[in-house]
C-alpha cells in the first residue's frame, strides 16, 4: 500500500501544472476563482486551448483523441486544474455525448461530431428531463414521429444547463408510444438547436442566475441520420451515459478549491476580535468537513482503481455523487455562515463579467448566499440523491 503519488505521477502533476501556468488566460482564472460566471466565449476559449493540447477529452479511447490517463492521473489533472483556477470543460459534450457516439454511434456520426466536441466549437446541450419526468426520467413525453427521412419532434425539455448557448442538443425522445414499459420506445437523437421550431426559454433560479432553460420543440424536422444507434434503444444508451459519469463525479477538485476559499473568508472575518478561523466552534465545523473531504478524496481514488479492476461501477458513481454533493453543499453553507450579515444583501449580478457596481461587503460575501442557494441543485439534478440511494440499495441489498 502506497498512498503517495509515484515518481511518474508526480512528474505528470508537474507537467499539468506547467501547462496550466503557461496556458490559462488570466481573465478566465479570475472569473473562475472569484466565483463568477464564465461567459460563452471564455468557456469555448479554454476548451479550445485544452483541445489543442489534446487534453479536452482525456478519458476517450486513444484512437478518438483520448490521453490514456489512468483514473488516478485523471484525478491529479482535475485537482491541479482547480488548484490553478482552471475551469473544467463542461461535461455535456465531452463526458456524456462523446462516449455514447463512440460506443453506439456510426462512423459517419463520429466523423461529423467528435472533432467539434474535442475543439469545443460545437456547444452541446443535454435534453433529458421534462416537466413531468424528473427523477422518473423514463416517463418522458417528447415525441419523435418518423416522416420519410425525418423525425418530427414535438415536446418540451427542461433544466437544460447553459442551453442558451447551445448549437446542438442530444435528446431522449419517445419513438414508440405504444410500448409495454415506459423504458421501451425511447430513442436518442441529435437536434440542431438553430433549426426552425426550437425555442429556448430561460429559467431564472432562486439565486437569481440564468443557468438553466426550457427547450421547446414544435414540429422540428430532424434528419433520420441524426438518430444514434437503434430506434427505441435510447434508454440503454442513456443508462450507459449516466453510469459513465463516475470519474469526477465526487467533485474533489472543486471542493478542495472551495475549502481554500472558505479558509480565506474565515481568516478575514472577525469574531470576538479574533479571526473567525480561530474560533473553536467554527474550527470544529471546518475540521469535520475537511476530514470528510480528505476521506472522500481517498475513497474516490480507491474506488476508481477498483472500478478499473472490474468492480461494478453502478454503486460507485452513486456513492461518490451522494457524498460528494453533501460535502460540496456543506462547504457552501459554511461559507455563507462565515460571511455573516454581508451574506444577506442580494446582488446577483455581482458575479457577472464586467459588473462594476459598489458591493455591500466583499465579493466573497456577496456571492456566498447565491452560491449556497444555487448548489442546492447538485443533490437534485442528474439523478437526485434519493434516486442515487435507490440505485445503490437495489444493487447492494436487492431492494
Amino acid at each position, binding site marked *: 500500500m502506497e498512498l503517495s503519488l509515484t515518481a511518474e505521477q508526480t512528474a505528470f502533476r508537474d507537467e499539468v501544472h506547467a501547462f496550466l501556468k503557461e496556458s490559462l488566460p488570466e481573465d478566465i482564472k479570475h472569473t473562475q476563482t472569484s466565483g463568477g460566471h464564465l461567459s460563452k466565449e471564455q468557456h469555448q476559449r479554454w476548451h479550445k486551448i485544452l483541445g489543442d493540447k489534446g487534453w479536452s477529452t482525456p478519458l476517450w479511447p486513444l484512437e478518438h483523441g483520448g490521453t490514456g490517463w489512468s483514473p488516478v492521473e485523471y484525478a491529479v489533472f482535475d485537482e491541479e486544474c482547480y488548484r490553478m483556477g482552471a475551469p473544467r470543460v463542461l461535461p455535456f459534450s465531452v463526458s456524456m455525448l462523446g462516449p455514447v457516439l463512440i460506443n453506439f454511434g456510426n462512423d459517419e456520426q463520429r466523423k461529423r461530431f467528435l472533432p467539434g466536441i474535442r475543439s469545443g466549437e460545437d456547444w452541446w446541450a443535454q435534453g433529458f428531463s421534462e416537466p413531468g419526468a424528473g427523477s422518473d426520467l423514463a416517463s418522458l413525453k417528447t415525441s419523435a414521429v418518423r416522416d420519410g427521412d425525418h423525425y418530427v419532434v414535438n415536446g418540451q425539455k427542461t433544466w437544460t444547463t447553459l442551453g442558451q448557448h447551445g448549437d446542438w442538443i442530444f435528446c431522449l425522445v419517445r419513438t414508440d408510444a405504444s410500448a409495454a414499459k415506459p423504458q421501451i420506445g425511447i430513442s436518442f437523437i441529435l437536434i440542431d438547436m438553430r433549426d426552425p421550431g426550437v425555442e429556448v426559454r430561460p429559467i*431564472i*433560479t*432562486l439565486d437569481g442566475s440564468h443557468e438553466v432553460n426550457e427547450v421547446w420543440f414544435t414540429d422540428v424536422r430532424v434528419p433520420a441520420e441524426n438518430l444514434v444507434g437503434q430506434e427505441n434503444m435510447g434508454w440503454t444508451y442513456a443508462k450507459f451515459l449516466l453510469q459513465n459519469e463516475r470519474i469526477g463525479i465526487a467533485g474533489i477538485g472543486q471542493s478542495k478549491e472551495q475549502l481554500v476559499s472558505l479558509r480565506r473568508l474565515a481568516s478575514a472575518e472577525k469574531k470576538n476580535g479574533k479571526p473567525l478561523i480561530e474560533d473553536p466552534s467554527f474550527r470544529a465545523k471546518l475540521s469535520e468537513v475537511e476530514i470528510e473531504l480528505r476521506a472522500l478524496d481517498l475513497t474516490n481514488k480507491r474506488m476508481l482503481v477498483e472500478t478499473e479492476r472490474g468492480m461494478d461501477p453502478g454503486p460507485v458513481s452513486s456513492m461518490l455523487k451522494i457524498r460528494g454533493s453533501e460535502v460540496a453543499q456543506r462547504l457552501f453553507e459554511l461559507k455563507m455562515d462565515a460571511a455573516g*450579515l454581508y451574506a444577506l444583501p442580494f*446582488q446577483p449580478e455581482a458575479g457577472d463579467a464586467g459588473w462594476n457596481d459598489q458591493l*455591500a461587503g466583499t465579493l466573497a460575501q456577496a456571492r456566498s448566499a447565491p452560491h449556497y442557494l444555487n448548489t442546492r441543485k447538485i443533490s*437534485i*439534478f442528474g439523478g437526485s440523491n*434519493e434516486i442515487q440511494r435507490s440505485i445503490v440499495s437495489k444493487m447492494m441489498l436487492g431492494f
Partner: protein
Amino acid sequence: MNFDYSEEQKMLVQSLERTLAKTYDFETYRSQLATKSSHDPALWNSLAELGIMAMSLPEAAGGFDGNHTDIALISAELGRRLVPEPFVSNVVLSAFVLNACGGDSAAEQLGEIATGERKFAVGFYEPGERHNPLALSTKAEKTADGWSITGHKAVVLGGDTASELIISADAGGASLFMIPADSDGLTVRKYQLLDGRGAADLIFDNVSVGADALLGQAGQAEAIILDAVDRGAAALVADSLGAIEEIIDMTKEYLRTRTQFGRPIGSFQVLAHRMVDLLVDYEQAKSMSMEASVEADNEDAATRQKAISACKAKVGAVSRKFGKESIQMHGGIGMTDEYALGAYVKRLLVNETMFGDTDYHLERYSSL
C-alpha cells in the same frame, strides 16, 4: 398556563389576513421586487389603517398598549405573505428605542410610527464584528454645538426607506443618536436583501448633528441595545414561523400531487418520514416562538435573553433544515425563481442571520 390569543388579537390577525389575501399575493410580491424597492406606499398605508403599526405602541402615542405577542402575530402574517415592508425596523426596533430613551420628541415620533407617516431605522451592527451588537467602532465626538459622528453601520434593516436613522456610537460608552438620512457626510448605500426586504449600509464621515441628536444618556445605551435586539429577534422568529407554515402547506401539497413512477411522491417512505420530522421540528419551533413572544417583554434581562437565545437558535436551526429539505423534496421546481418556495427559503435565511445567527445565540445561551 394557557396558549391562547385574545379575541382582539384574533380579530386583528383576521383582518390583516383578509387584507393581504386580497391585495398581496406572490405575483404582487414579484412585481414589487421588479421595482427594486422594498416599499409600496399604498400597501404601507393600508397596513397602517388596519392598526398593525399602532397595536403594540403606548396609548399616549395613539397606540393600543399591546405587547410582544401582538408583534409576533403580525410578524407571522407578514412572513407568511412575504411582505417586505419595514414593519420590524419601525414598529419593533425604532419604537422600542424611542420609547425607552424618552425625550421631548419621543411621543410625537411614536405617533408618526403608529400612523406610518414617518419611517425610522435602527443600526447597531458594524462590518467585521459579526453578530455582536455591542462591538462599537463608530465614534461620536463632542463639538461646540453637538456631535460629530464617524463610522460604518452594516446591513441596517429598513435603512433604505427611513428618513431618520437611529444608530449606536461610542461617546464615552455606547450611546444612541438619531440622524436624518439626508445629513451631510452621511452615505446611505441602499440595497435589497435576499428576500426583497430593504436595508442599507450607513457610512458616517464626520457627520455633524445637534446636541438633541443624542437619545437618552451618553454612554448608557448597552441595556437598551440588547433589549432592542432581543425584540427584533423575537419578531423575526415569528416572521419565520409564518413562512414555515406556508412552506409546510406548499410541500405537503406537492408531495400529495406530484407524481413520479406512477405514484404521488409523498407515498415514497423516505419523503414521508422526512416530512414528519419537519412537522415535529415545526411544533418545537412554534413552542419556542410562543415563549419568545411572551418573554420579549420580560423586564428581567437574564430571563429574557435566555428565552430569546434559546428560541433564535432553535428556530434558526429548524429554518435551515426547512430550507434545505423543502427544496430537495420539490426537486427542480423548488430551484426556480418563479415558484414561491425559493422566496420563503430566502426570507428564512434573512431572519436566521439578522439579530444574531444560530451560533451566536447558542453561545449566548450557553454563557447565561
